[in-house]
């Protein structure tokens, strides 16, 4: 009896191959390689929102005279570098023409080889670590890079915040926070920085706050995941941190606003987009988020726009342009078409350099308004 049951169980598994779907228009598939769970799950979901919104606005694309339905195919890389290659392979096996993503640099680096091996182009949306595109011919990205962002932040800390000693906190094994801290330290001056890393699964950040206070730092730089961020903000509040917190693009999120609301912590971030830059776009996407319960939940329960959502929106149109320029759904043709693209997006003009990185030279700096729980625009920062 047990044997039969066991065999039946195995059969069930074998039969579970997903059936094929058929549609009227020919379909072109765009892979969405984003974390839906894990440390960066919240950010990944927000980034996907932008693509989904763009997809509702422009559900079809004309390629070589034929109208194609655009289908977004999702794979959850679970914010984990060892799950990423298989998630990427899943997209490739699904026959996507190109891939968008990911939020978080580690997973993109981890999957870059899989994409390269299959010759499927990938466009990074907000993965800012230089290693994503270095040494990989199929990876492009539309965001700025960490050396740039780190320098912007360091300059901001020095000139605007008047900081002389910085406390930098990264998560062990996280390429995004580790990388950004390194570039920040390089720009700020190694001798004036205290650099510490916390192991995964840490929830007690009170000691790190104490460390920053004890070492007499005057800025707290912690470009970590939003999960850790919420904990850090809570502790910074109860322990009266007494210095501004500075972070990168990941912190441009509702999670931070929710955590910071009603506290007396000063938070500044660099990001890709400032709400209000394109009123019409803002209105449209907010209406869409509010009309869709899942979207609202994925955006953290309100319609405050995250820059990554806008980046996701732009990435979708870059993908459509690439398909149009390629005149085919074959990944190989798309790959050839991408380097020469020039797209005007909501976040600015998008074009690629030789390595495949975006030609961007400015970042927005925002500060959290802890009374109203929204971002206030501070400045547009450039390096030069």
């Amino acid at each position, binding site marked *: 009896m047990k044997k039969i049951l066991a065999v039946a169980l195995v059969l069930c598994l074998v039969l579970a191959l997903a059936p094929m779907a058929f549609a009227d228009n020919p379909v072109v598939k765009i892979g969405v390689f984003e974390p*839906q*769970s*894990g440390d960066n*799950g*919240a950010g990944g*979901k927000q980034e996907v929102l932008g693509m989904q919104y763009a997809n509702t606005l422009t559900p079809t694309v004309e390629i070589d005279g034929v109208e194609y339905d655009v289908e977004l195919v999702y794979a959850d890389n*679970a914010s984990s570098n060892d799950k990423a290659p298989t998630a990427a392979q899943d997209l490739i096996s699904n026959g996507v023409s190109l891939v968008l993503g990911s939020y978080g640099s580690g997973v993109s680096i981890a999957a870059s080889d899989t994409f390269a091996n299959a010759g499927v182009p990938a466009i990074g949306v907000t993965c800012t670590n230089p290693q994503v595109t270095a040494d990989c011919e199929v990876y492009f990205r539309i965001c700025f890079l960490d050396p740039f962002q780190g320098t912007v932040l360091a300059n901001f800390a020095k000139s605007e915040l008047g900081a002389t000693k910085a406390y930098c906190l990264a998560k*062990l094994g996280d390429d995004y926070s580790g990388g950004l801290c390194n570039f920040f330290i390089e720009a700020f001056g190694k001798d004036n920085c*205290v*650099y*510490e*890393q*916390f*192991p995964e*699964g*840490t*929830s*007690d*950040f*009170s*000691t*790190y706050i*104490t*460390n920053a206070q*004890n*070492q007499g730092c005057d800025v707290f730089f912690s470009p970590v995941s*939003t*999960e850790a961020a*919420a*904990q850090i903000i*809570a*502790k910074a*509040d*109860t*322990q*009266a941190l007494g210095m501004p917190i500075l972070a990168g693009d990941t912190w441009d999120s509702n*999670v931070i606003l*929710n*955590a910071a609301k009603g506290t007396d912590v000063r938070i500044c971030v660099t990001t890709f987009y400032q709400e209000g830059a394109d009123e019409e776009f803002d209105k449209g996407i907010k209406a869409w988020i509010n009309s869709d319960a899942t979207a609202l939940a994925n955006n953290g329960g309100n319609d405050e726009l995250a820059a990554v959502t806008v980046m996701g929106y732009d990435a979708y149109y870059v993908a459509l342009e690439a398909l149009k320029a390629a005149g085919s759904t074959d990944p190989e043709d798309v790959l050839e078409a991408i380097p020469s693209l020039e797209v005007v997006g909501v976040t600015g003009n998008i074009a690629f350099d030789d390595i495949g990185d975006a030609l961007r030279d400015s970042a927005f700096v925002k500060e959290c308004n802890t009374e109203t729980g929204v971002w206030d625009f501070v400045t547009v920062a450039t390096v030069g």
Partner: protein
Amino acid sequence: MAKTILPYVISGISVGGQYALIAIGYTMVYGILRLINFAHGDVFMVAGLLMVYLAASLPLYVSIPLVILLTVLLGFTIERVAYRPLRTAPRMSVMISAIGVSYLLQNLALYITGGLNKNYPQIPWISDRVTVLGMETSRVTIITPFLTIVLVVLLVLLINHTKIGMAMRAVSLNFETSQLMGIRINNVISATFIIGTFLAAVGSMLFFTNYPGVVPTSGAMPGLKAFVAAVFGGIGSIPGAVIGAFIIGIAESLIKGLDTILIVHGTIAEQIGFATFSDAFTFILLIIVLVFKPTGLFGEKTTDKV
């Protein structure tokens, strides 16, 4: 010197108190079943999630007792479903079952939360900011160790002066003999799980009020550390577990701050990166204890009969 170190010690005592409440569950279950209940840390996490969801729709004075009740029910059910059928199986099987339950709870939490960080509700008064000895901290940090000690004293009274407590002591001394003496083993084990999970539920409230974010893996590390605390203090011994937990909590906090402490006092010039080892240190401590005093600080020595 004192002023630099004090914040670390206070934070460590608070963390230790939370570990202690989890560690008791480990040590009691191990004392009776000789089982490392790997799922205990995850029960602790589930208690946190329950609070998140219940407090969203119910007032705190309803949700707090309800969370405790549901958590206890969960602990009771886990024992019934996953451990009781394996009572006669080899110890390894039961341990694997425990790992399986832990895997299941984490994945269930992942499914329900969608893998997102859940903000723990603010419990008024205890999460307020207070100033102690010139140091800013939250009230829960100060309360935790005291509450822990009160609960432990109550527990020790329960074990020493009630019938069920006596039965527990008997079972942990000798499983088979107590069975022969007419003690209802299953009731005793259920009671153990109920007490263990009750304390874990209380612990989770203190913990998550202090560190207000719940993710599916929130319970894993505290759970493991609490277990180490139980081993450190001598598994099976409740005072041992509590003292072990405080030692580990303080040591962990000091390790995280060691770079800073040494730099402030001029012993070293630049960061060494001790914080990297804040988790690993717990295990170093564990291995030292296991190798040199396998029965822990307060454990009793047993010899295998040939």
